[in-house]
C-alpha cells in the first residue's frame, strides 16, 4: 500500500480525472462517429447505402422518395457516408441523445 503513496499524494493535489457530467460536457472529437443523418434534398434514392449497410439499418424507397434509418440498428461504421455517390449522408460527431421510446429517423423528399 505504501508504494501507492506517491500516487495518492499526486492525486490529492491534481485536478480530478473525472468530470462532473451535467455541468461539464465532454465535447466530441473532430471526425468522431456519433450518428448518421442525411441531407435529403440531394439524395437520388439509388439505394447503395441500403445495399452496403452491414446492419440492415437503412431503408430507401425510390417510389415514396423516402430514406429512413433505424438508429438503434445502426453501428455507425460510416460505410454509407463513404459509398454515397452524392455525398449527402452526413456523419455527426455528436452522439444521439437518449430517448424514452425507440424511433426511426425517417426523411421524405418534398
Amino acid at each position: 500500500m505504501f508504494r501507492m503513496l506517491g500516487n495518492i499524494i499526486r492525486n490529492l493535489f491534481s485536478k480530478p480525472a473525472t468530470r462532473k457530467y451535467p455541468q461539464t460536457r465532454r465535447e466530441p472529437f473532430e471526425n468522431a462517429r456519433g450518428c448518421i443523418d442525411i441531407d435529403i434534398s440531394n439524395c437520388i434514392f439509388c439505394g447503395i447505402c441500403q445495399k452496403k449497410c452491414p446492419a440492415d439499418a437503412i431503408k430507401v424507397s425510390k417510389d415514396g422518395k423516402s430514406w429512413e434509418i433505424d438508429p438503434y440498428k445502426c453501428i455507425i461504421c460510416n460505410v454509407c457516408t463513404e459509398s454515397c455517390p452524392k455525398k449527402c449522408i452526413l456523419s455527426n460527431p455528436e452522439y444521439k441523445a437518449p430517448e424514452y421510446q425507440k424511433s426511426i429517423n425517417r426523411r421524405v423528399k418534398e
Partner: protein
Amino acid sequence: MPDRRTIIPFGPQHPVLPEPIQLRLVIEDERVVEAIPSVGYVHRGLEKLIETKDYNQMIFVVERICGICSFMHALTFCQAIESLMDVEIPPRAKYLRVIWSELHRVHSHLLWLGLMADSFGFESLFMQIWKIREEILDVLEKTSGNRVIISTNIVGGLRRDIKDDMMKHVLNVVGECKREMDRVKKVFTHDYTVKHRTVGVGVLSKGKAYELGIVGPTGRGSGLEQDSRTLGYAAYDQLDFTPVVETDGDCYARMVVRLREVFQSFDLIEQAVSKIPKGEISVPVKGNPDGEVVARVEQPRGEVFYYIKANGTKNLERLRVRTPTFANVPVLLAVMPGAQLADVPVITLSIDPCISCTER
C-alpha cells in the same frame, strides 16, 4: 469421503467477471477438487452470418466478436481475404495496422491489469490503471472516430489515415502513459499484498502448458516462447522486439508478462511512428475471393485463428474462428484442483477470459 463435497457455482453472474461463464466448483472444505465449466450463455451465431452478408460487410461483423480486441479480429479477417485475393497492401497501411493493434493491446492489458487488481480487492490500483487506459481510448477515438470498435480495416488497406500532427499527439500520449505506468508498475511487482495473493497461485508448468496448447500471455507466463507477431504480419517483420517470457507459471508471472507487454507495446508504437513511410493507405480491390485460407494474429489474449472457405461469390462459404480464450479455458480445469476457494477469482482472471469471444 464423497459426502464432504459441496458444489458451489461460480458464475454465470459473478462480481469479478462481468462475462457469463459458469464454473461448478466441487469443494472439499475450502479446497477445490474439480472445476466443471459450462459455457453457451452468449452464443450469437456470428459465423453463420457469412451466408447472408458479403465479405466487405463481414469485416464489421467479425469486429464485433470481441469488444476489446476488435481491431485484431478485423485485421485477421482482412489479412485472410487479402492473401486469398493476392492483394499487397501499401507499406503505410501496414505500419498503421501495427500502431492501432498495439494501442488495442495496451488498452486491453490495462483493462485486465485493472480487473486483476480489483479481483484481489485493490480498488485504488484498479482506478489508477483505468485512468491511464482512458487516455489510450481517447487517442483511439481521436485517430479513428470510435473508442473501441474502430472499424478502420478494409480489404486492401485502411479507411482512415493518421495525420502527422496526430502522430505527434499519439507519441505524446504514449510517453505520458509510459511515465504514469512506471509509477504504478512497482505496486504490481513489489507490493506485499499483491504478491501474497498471486505468487504460487495457479501454477501451470511449461510442459503442461505445451500439452494443453496454451496461447498468448498465459502460455508465455509458463515459459512457452510463442508469439504470433514473430510471424511478421503487417509491419512486425520490420520492427525490433522479442516475446516477453516469464518462467514461473503462476498468476504473478502471467501478470508480469502483461505488465511488461504494455511497455513493449509502447516501444513498438514509438518504433512504428518513427519508421512509418508516406504514401497511400489502401489499394482498390476487385473481384471475389476463392479458395481456402488460414490466418493467425496475436491478440492481447493470445493467438487468434481464422479459417475461411470462399467459393468465388461475394458471400463466403465457411468461417471458423478459434479465439485465444477458447484455447486457454483448459488452464482453469488444470490448475483449479487444489486451489483455495478464495483464489478462484484470481486464477479465473489470470487467463484473461473473454467469453463473448469464445462463444462468438
